[in-house]
Each structure stands twice: as structure tokens, then as C-alpha cells.
């Protein structure tokens, strides 16, 4: 039997980190959100679908840096495009031609969109999107889905730390798949709602993923039209893993604004907000900038990544691998007398144990899998990448079988 991984260096480095960095590691990458002590804390390198932590443990990775790694770590095409661009410099006084090329490429690729602006992180562009909607409509309220994540800016940040009530005073929540509740909010705040922002399907942390019910997205689209409200599709997590033309093509609806980030440049820091012609003038009135928003190597990487996704028909392959993983996990669980729920599209799968809402078995499962070289987050959906092959999925299922056996022994069902 292979020796189980240990995390001594991760822990030691974390002790150092905690002395000089608040929380040691901030936000959702803090170990508290995974399985502290049985999960890596610090990265060393990545290659293909494999990720190596500071302890030298190597994993088949289904976290993909929380989404960006869509082709695989160190993809040669993307790396050389970025390196080539870097030879000319990194950040300049002005954007380079790459900015225009990338905007043209995205407008041509994402259906229904006529313009494009760049940021660095997803939060930059979701904030920009709601501001463009407010400017366009001259209204205040933002309607979003309860439990949906749109980033870390004040209007949508989790918790209350550092926030004041007015930060979220104009943000209203409704339940996923409940267009009637959205309509009630629109009626209650008639004339004051600027936008409805949704993810194309519901992928909350700490829960099963939920696909749109029949007619839900088209109902929202109709409601937005009727009430003069902007419909924003936050495609930051699902983008380029369901359909290169945007997840709204996959689910068949027509948003006014779409946001991208994660899988856009295979790990390079860039995000994009796209919109329809109608909104272009309003978008131009929002002062949207950042020191690094124009840096070119990331834009070159994005151009190369998009071309590779097209050339390899990556989505089809990832769908196939994701299906193999989901079906395999289901069978392995069943063979061990356990019941699991696999949710979400095959390229962004997630698993929970039946009849459990405190995640204890998930935490144990993920911790045991990590110790055996497979990285599956207990509380956050997983990501398939192009580099995942059948052999990797089979290795994953072998490890999963062992972990299910442990769960069965410890928890009984």
C-alpha cells in the first residue's frame, strides 16, 4: 500500500503565515473551509492534471485552482503565448494590441454580446456589471439568488466583517428556480430594480448543485424585459466548461451582460465583462480601471487558451471524463452500501452523501482521498480539465472505493 500523505510542511508554513498574514491564508482558500490537517495548504507546482503541494504530495486535481486551470497546468501553448508577450514587457502606460484582439475574439465567441471590458478577478467584473446596469437603468436595486456567490466586493460579500448596512441595503435575494419570488420583488420595488444577476445554474458552496428548472431562465428573461431590468449572467465559474459561446447557449437564454474569469486564460489573472449594444454607452460611463487591468501577457494567454479550447474540442472531452467520474463514484458508493448524490453538469461535478447536511462524511471522504493523492473538495464543486484522461479517472475511482469503504466502516451508511 502506498504511504499516506502527510502535511507537515504545509502546517509549518501555515504557522509562519499566521504570524504575518491575517487568517494565515485568507478567504475560501483558508484550510478551515476544507479539511484542516488532511488537505494541502500551500502549492509548489502543477503539471497536466497533477498538482504538487509543499510537502511534495502529488494529487490528481479536481479543484483546478478553483476553476481557472481548464486545459491543465503549464499548458505549453498558453505558456509560450504568455512568455512571448512578456518578452516585450509586462504592464505599460497603455493597453497593447492584445487587448483589442482579445475583446474582438470574445465578442465573436460569446453569443449575443457586442462589447467587452477587462478586469483581473471575477469580483471586478461582477461589480462592474451591476454598476453598468444601475447606470443604464438609473435605478438602485440588485436582485440576486440566495446563496449564490458573486465575489468579494461589498455589495455581495459574505458575512458582515468590514461591512455597513448600506453596503447591501439595495441587494435583494430570491430562491433559485423561483421566478415568482423574483417577480414579487420586481413588483414590490417597481421602478427601482436595476438588474437580476444569476449564475447560469446554481452552484452554492455547502450544497448540491441545482440545474435551472424548465422555463425558469426564460421566465426571468421575460420578467427583466417587462420591467426594464438588466439580466446579468455571472458565468465566472461555469464559463468555457459548458459551451464556448457562453453557458447561456447551453441553457438557452439571452442575458444582457455576461461575466467571465476563471477558465478564460488557464490560470492567468484576467476577467471580462461583456454586454449588448444597448448597454455599451452606460458601461462607458462607469469608471472601471485598475493598475493591472491592461497587462498584456494575461491577454495573450487568454487568446491562446480560447484557441486551444476550440482546437481540442475541450468541452466534449471534459464532459466525457466528468460523466465517467460521476457514474463511477455513484457505482463505487453503491458497491460499498452507501448512497451519494452527484449533482451539476459533468464538467463541474459535486458529490454529497445522502441524508447528511453537516458534511461530516464528505469531510472524512475528502480528507482520506487527499491523503491518497486525489483532491476532491468536501464543500465546493469540482472542476474537470482537458488533461484529465480515462486512466486518471480510473485511478480516482480506485481511491474513492477505498475511501467509501472507510466511510461505510466508520459511519455505517
Amino acid at each position: 500500500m502506498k504511504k499516506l500523505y502527510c502535511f507537515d510542511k504545509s502546517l509549518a508554513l501555515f504557522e509562519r503565515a499566521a504570524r504575518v498574514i491575517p487568517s494565515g491564508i485568507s478567504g475560501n482558500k483558508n484550510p478551515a473551509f476544507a479539511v484542516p490537517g488532511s488537505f494541502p495548504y500551500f502549492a509548489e507546482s502543477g503539471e497536466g492534471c497533477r498538482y504538487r503541494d509543499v510537502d511534495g504530495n502529488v494529487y490528481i486535481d479536481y479543484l483546478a485552482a478553483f476553476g481557472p486551470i481548464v486545459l491543465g497546468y503549464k499548458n505549453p501553448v498558453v505558456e509560450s503565448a504568455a512568455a512571448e508577450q512578456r518578452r516585450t514587457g509586462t504592464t505599460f502606460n497603455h493597453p497593447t494590441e492584445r487587448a483589442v484582439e482579445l475583446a474582438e475574439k470574445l465578442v465573436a465567441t460569446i453569443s449575443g454580446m457586442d462589447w467587452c471590458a477587462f478586469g483581473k478577478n471575477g469580483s471586478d467584473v461582477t461589480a462592474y456589471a451591476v454598476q453598468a446596469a444601475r447606470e443604464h437603468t438609473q435605478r438602485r436595486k440588485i436582485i440576486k439568488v440566495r446563496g449564490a456567490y458573486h465575489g468579494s466586493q461589498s455589495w455581495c460579500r459574505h458575512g458582515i466583517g468590514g461591512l455597513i448596512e448600506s453596503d447591501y441595503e439595495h441587494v435583494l435575494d430570491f430562491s433559485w428556480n423561483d421566478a415568482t419570488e423574483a417577480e414579487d420583488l420586481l413588483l414590490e420595488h417597481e421602478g427601482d430594480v436595476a438588474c437580476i444577476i444569476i449564475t447560469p445554474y446554481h452552484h452554492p458552496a455547502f450544497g448540491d448543485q441545482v440545474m435551472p428548472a424548465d422555463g425558469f431562465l426564460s421566465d426571468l428573461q421575460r420578467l427583466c424585459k417587462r420591467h426594464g431590468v438588466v439580466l446579468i449572467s455571472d458565468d465566472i465559474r461555469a464559463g468555457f466548461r459548458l459551451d464556448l459561446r457562453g453557458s447561456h447557449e447551453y441553457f438557452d437564454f439571452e442575458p444582457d451582460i455576461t461575466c467571465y474569469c476563471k477558465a478564460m486564460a488557464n490560470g492567468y489573472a484576467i476577467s471580462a465583462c461583456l454586454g449588448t449594444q444597448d448597454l455599451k454607452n452606460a458601461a462607458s460611463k462607469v469608471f472601471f480601471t485598475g493598475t493591472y487591468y491592461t497587462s498584456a501577457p494575461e491577454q495573450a494567454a487568454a487568446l491562446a487558451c480560447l484557441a486551444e479550447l476550440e482546437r481540442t474540442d475541450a468541452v466534449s472531452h471534459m464532459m466525457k471524463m466528468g460523466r465517467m467520474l460521476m457514474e463511477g463514484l455513484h457505482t463505487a458508493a453503491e458497491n460499498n452500501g452507501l448512497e451519494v448524490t452527484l449533482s451539476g453538469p459533468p464538467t463541474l461535478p459535486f458529490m454529497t452523501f445522502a441524508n447528511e447536511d453537516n458534511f461530516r462524511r464528505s469531510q472524512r471522504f475528502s480528507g482520506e482521498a487527499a491523503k491518497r493523492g486525489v483532491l476532491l473538495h468536501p464543500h465546493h464543486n469540482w472542476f474537470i480539465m482537458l488533461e484529465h484522461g480515462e486512466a486518471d479517472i480510473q485511478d480516482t475511482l480506485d481511491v474513492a472505493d477505498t475511501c467509501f469503504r472507510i466511510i461505510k466502516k466508520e459511519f455505517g451508511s
Partner: protein
Amino acid sequence: MISMTSQGRAFGIASPVLQWMGLDPSPSIHDRIRAGMHLFAVLPRLTDVVRHDEEGRRIADKMRVSIEFRVLNGPRVVLSFADGRIKTRSEGKSDLGLLFTSCAQLNNMFDGRKVLPIPFKGLHKAGELSRLTRLTEILTRYLKPSDTDMQSPRFRESHVEMSLLVGLSATQQIALQDPRAERIANHLPNGTIQYIILDGPACHVVLEDGLIEARSGTIADPTTTIEIQDIDLAVSLIKGEVDTFAANGSGAIKASGSLVLADEFNTLFDRVGHYLQ
């Protein structure tokens, strides 16, 4: 202009008049929250004084009375002493009553300043008040211990348990009254959280439909478990000195089970320090 607050109107007296009488017609939210915490989170710990302290037990054994603490236009609580046990209720009859003219006056008393509440009934039982005073002195000793007291391992353990129970039950006032926590309190999940201090006591919290109750000891099958490495860490945690995310990462605190519940409840717990020292 004479302004009339809703509290003022209840008396039919304008608020400047109430102020002139030394009464507080509209306590600040801060004072109200603190008063709630003093009555519903600190005072009920007298129960623990009886459990943990020999002298406390002897005093309580002699008491057979129910004492009401009432704040004018504010909260009230009744402590019933019988058979060496103490129960706290927020309604019902009492033998003896103490009226505080404002939340601030009640808070001053809990802060250790001299105040004179008005006895409003049961004067013939006033002798019980000196016993009560002694019990509260013992409670204060446990909640604000001297360095010498803290050298005794048993005392430290009692201190930690009582302080933790104060902090955990005080979250109820945060959930009910703190405008900054409203966003969390409105969607507080149901469940139970077990706190285990590895070389010390255990407590748990039960959250049900917005009500929060803290109790000592363990509970079966908690929704969330929080293991705290040792009493020293628990003491720092109570003082609000711990970076809990860092402590989670290092393994000094181990949270398992529903982290959503842990996170939401911890947000309330974190705010207690803004009101109670």
C-alpha cells in the same frame, strides 16, 4: 419643542421630564443590548456559581425566594431560588423586585459601579438581597478573576466554562437586537454546536427558530463540533484575542460538521465582545 418618545408616552410624561427625573426615555441600542446580555446571559450564571462554588452552594441552599430585576421600559428577569437551585425566567410572579430606572443604570451595576435600584415589592424579604449580593460577588470573581485565582486549575476551568456560557448565551441579544448582525440573524440555521475544550469543560449551543440557548456539558450528535486545544486558548478566545481562521488552520481549533452553522454563529459570537468585556 417637547419631543415624545414611545416610552415617554407610555407614562404620559414627556422625555425631557423623564430625563430631568434622572430616567432614560430612549436607551441607545448599545445600552439595550448590554442590559439584555446582563440579565439573560450573565445573571443566569448564578446557576453555575451554585454548581462550581462551595460557598455559593451554601448560600443558595438557604434561599427560597424569587427576585425580579426590572428595567423601566426595558427587559425584566425573575430568578427563583429553591432547594439549592436557581432558575431564570423572563416572566411570572416574584416575591421581591428591584427596579432600575434605565438600561444604563443596570449596566453600571454590572460594571461594578455603585447604583441604587428601587425595591418595588417584597420589602419584608429584603434580607435575601444580601445573600444575592454575595452570590453576585462570587460570580464576578469567576468572570473577572484575579491572577491568583487563575493559578488554581479548578478555578480556571470554572472560569472558562462560565465565561464561555456567558458569551454563547449573549449571542441571543446580538441576534435579536444588533442591527449589524441582522443580516445573519434573519437566516440563522437550526442546529446544535458542541464546544469541547480538550483539557477542560464542554458546552453546547442549541439554535432553534432564532432562539439560542447555551448549556454546559455535551450533546449527542451535534450539527457542528468545535474542539479547542486547551484552556489557555479558550481563555484567549473568550477575550477575543484569537484569529480563529488561523487557529483552525493550525489545528489549535478543529471545526467539523456544518461549517455554515459554525460560521454564522461565530459571526454573532464575535460581536459579543463589542458589548461585554
